[in-house]
């Protein structure tokens, strides 16, 4: 699968710009602040309808415009050609059309276009809060199977409802509150156990792939472990919720469940978050992304597009060369402000300046 052509209208700093990409490697170069990352963001937005920079959708609309548009021609390995169009209004719902047909559910988009982005912010996968790693795992679950999106939405919804109920009861566990909690807990336990199982299975699958990618990028033979052992998984969520009920009511929030999980990353026997160097963290974050990229390619028969957004300059020359030597097959888009390393060997170089394509 690859993006052959992508057009941005009133998207970020682009009034109108069109990019023709090759099926292999395209480099987008330009000084900082000219709009390189915005192109990467537009590509990823088509796949997830979300910004990987974690900003509100309205931030994507160019100043003075009402809506942004992104339009792309996507070619699948089986020869199928799809026209994907999204309209991003400043307010209201994003509209998605595939071959001019309106998409009923956004998760239907997962089978159309898959994009893996690696950006400098990915250091947070290792360094950041547990929520960063949960999002990583859950995003991966959705790219592997679109139905997981429903599971994730359901968990968010039940947790929000349960937390509201806990706040409303103002610390008092009356019989009525208990009766209502029983049914919300039953639902939460069902969804939570399923998500816990899905995460555990995913991480077990990813572990050897992350380790392999780490060895390729860092050039070091180090054991990599993804530790996912939340306490509630030992008893099952239903029992854990019963045990924490008094505490939950007193604090007015759901203290136990998959929404509080962490995934611990180990290099050798040491937790990476506290013991790894900056370079090791970068290699590990990149390995996590590459592993998901390969897993998606393997489980879905669809080679995703890999976007390396501004990351080559962040890696030391050795790691950078190792990464470029081990790029997975498929389309790659590299954006960079610094000169391209020789090993990048792009088929096409696009230069941009102030939201305009120069070459």
């Amino acid at each position, binding site marked *: 699968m690859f993006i052959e052509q992508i057009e941005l209208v009133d998207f970020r700093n682009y009034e109108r710009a069109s990019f023709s990409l090759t099926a292999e490697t395209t480099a987008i170069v330009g000084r900082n602040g000219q709009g390189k990352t915005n192109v990467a963001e537009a590509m990823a937005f088509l796949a997830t309808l979300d910004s990987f920079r974690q900003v509100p959708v309205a931030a994507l609309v160019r100043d003075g415009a009402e809506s942004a548009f992104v339009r792309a021609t996507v070619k699948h390995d089986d020869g199928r050609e799809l026209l994907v169009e999204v309209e991003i209004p400043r307010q209201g719902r994003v509209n998605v059309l595939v071959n001019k047909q309106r998409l009923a559910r956004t998760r239907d988009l997962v089978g159309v276009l898959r994009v893996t982005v690696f950006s400098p912010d990915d250091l947070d996968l290792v360094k950041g809060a547990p929520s960063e790693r949960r999002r990583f795992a859950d995003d991966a679950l959705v790219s592997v199977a679109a139905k997981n999106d429903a599971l994730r939405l359901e968990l968010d*919804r039940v947790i*929000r*409802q349960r937390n509201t*109920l806990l706040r*409303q009861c103002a610390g008092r566990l009356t019989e*009525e509150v208990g009766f*209502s909690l*029983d049914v919300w807990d*039953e*639902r939460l336990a069902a969804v939570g156990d399923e998500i816990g199982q899905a995460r555990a299975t995913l991480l077990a699958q990813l572990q050897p792939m992350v380790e392999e990618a780490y060895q390729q990028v860092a050039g070091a033979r180090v054991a990599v472990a993804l530790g996912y052992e939340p306490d509630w998984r030992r008893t099952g969520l239903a029992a854990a919720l019963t045990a924490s009920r008094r505490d939950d009511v007193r604090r007015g929030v759901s203290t136990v469940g998959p929404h509080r999980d962490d995934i611990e990353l180990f290099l050798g026997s040491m937790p990476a978050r506290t013991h790894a160097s900056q370079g090791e963290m970068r290699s590990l974050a990149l390995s996590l992304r590459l592993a998901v990229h390969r897993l998606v390619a393997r489980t879905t028969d669809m080679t995703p597009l890999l976007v390396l957004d501004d990351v080559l300059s962040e890696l030391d020359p050795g790691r950078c060369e190792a990464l470029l030597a081990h790029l997975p097959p498929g389309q790659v888009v590299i954006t960079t402000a610094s000169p391209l390393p020789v090993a990048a060997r792009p088929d096409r170089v696009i230069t941009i300046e102030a939201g305009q394509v120069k070459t």
Partner: protein
Amino acid sequence: MASTYTLPVQNLIDHLGRLPGIGPRSAQRIAFHLLKLPAEDVQRLTQAITDAKERVRFCSQCFNFAEDDLCPICADPRRDSSVICVVEESRDIIPLERTGEFKGRYHVLLGVMNPIEGIGPDQLKMRELVMRIGSEDVREVIVCTNPNTEGEVTAQYIGRLLKPFDITVTRPASGLPVGGDLEYADELTLGRAISGRRRLDD
């Protein structure tokens, strides 16, 4: 954003915008449409709203819309009073009636459990449902809330609430689109779901 319309226009837009399913853009479009209509058309619309509001109330037994004390279904002696189908809103009765599979009576909860919207069991017609089980000769309750988060939780709640009674509590078989609404299910799917219902207490 500063209001750019005269007060009566802005007022109309604001009121329309509070209706379910109508966003700011639609509210504006409807308001402009109304203002372009001939005066008698607007009069007919306001009359229809006033009439409906004056003449329609809730059935004293099942809380469906009714013009009299009882709705047409509760007043119909041919309906099987031993089976009650619990639905969220009156609008859910229409697709169920169209299936032709169901000959019993209804009970409208007037919502589902939804803490975010401030709705718990006390805000719904739960107590009235329990009263009906006690006073009517009911053998089975079919809980036909929507197959989404709140609908499932409400169904489980009803299952537990009715446990002390010597009746069967069932839930329509799956086959309804998950996360979908009864309102949009086709008759065939809904009919099959009703005839293949499962017990809630197992």
